[in-house]
């Protein structure tokens, strides 16, 4: 199903993988409110949804979304240093994906949450003046500009 080795490797190393065919498991679709296929949900270890990927994506974008999901799990668990690292992995390794701007935003937020200092937010706003300028994430971060 996932022909790219880097995708299968990331899934195997980071998640407990569950595959549910819509015809065999319609109750699961209802239970988790999956209304389209493909839908990929990332849940934390308590079974709480942390990220949702609906529809097909090419490998780079899909991998970036998986990274985002893993990062959101860490963020929700208040493991902010780990979350920041995971978000920055997206920006550094998959910079041309749609997820990269979102990851840049949340990396700054994670660093702020970890340190309690406003400087990471200001640095994030500045970073958005240099890349992903037209993204909604740049607009969201603009309020932090010093």
């Amino acid at each position: 199903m996932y022909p790219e080795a880097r995708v299968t490797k990331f899934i195997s190393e980071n998640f407990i993988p569950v595959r549910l065919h819509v015809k065999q498991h319609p109750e699961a679709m209802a239970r988790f409110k999956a209304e389209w296929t493909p839908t990929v949900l990332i849940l934390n270890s308590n079974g709480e949804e942390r990220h949702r990927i609906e529809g097909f994506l090419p490998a780079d974008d899909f991998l970036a979304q998986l990274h985002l999901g893993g990062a959101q799990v860490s963020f929700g668990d208040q493991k902010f240093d780990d979350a920041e690292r995971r978000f920055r992995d997206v920006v550094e390794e998959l910079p041309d994906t749609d997820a990269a701007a979102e990851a840049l935003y949340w990396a700054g937020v994670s660093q702020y949450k970890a340190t309690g200092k406003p400087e990471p937010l200001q640095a994030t706003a500045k970073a958005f003046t240099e890349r992903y300028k037209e993204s909604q994430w740049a607009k969201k971060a603009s309020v932090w500009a010093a």
Partner: protein
Amino acid sequence: MAIQWTDDVDKALAQAKESGRPLLLDFTAAPM
């Protein structure tokens, strides 16, 4: 590296709770 899929959600949820590992749920309509 082949993914070791399960289709037992509740078993996977229990495993996640015990291990602290997150889950990935892949809903598909593709032939299996």
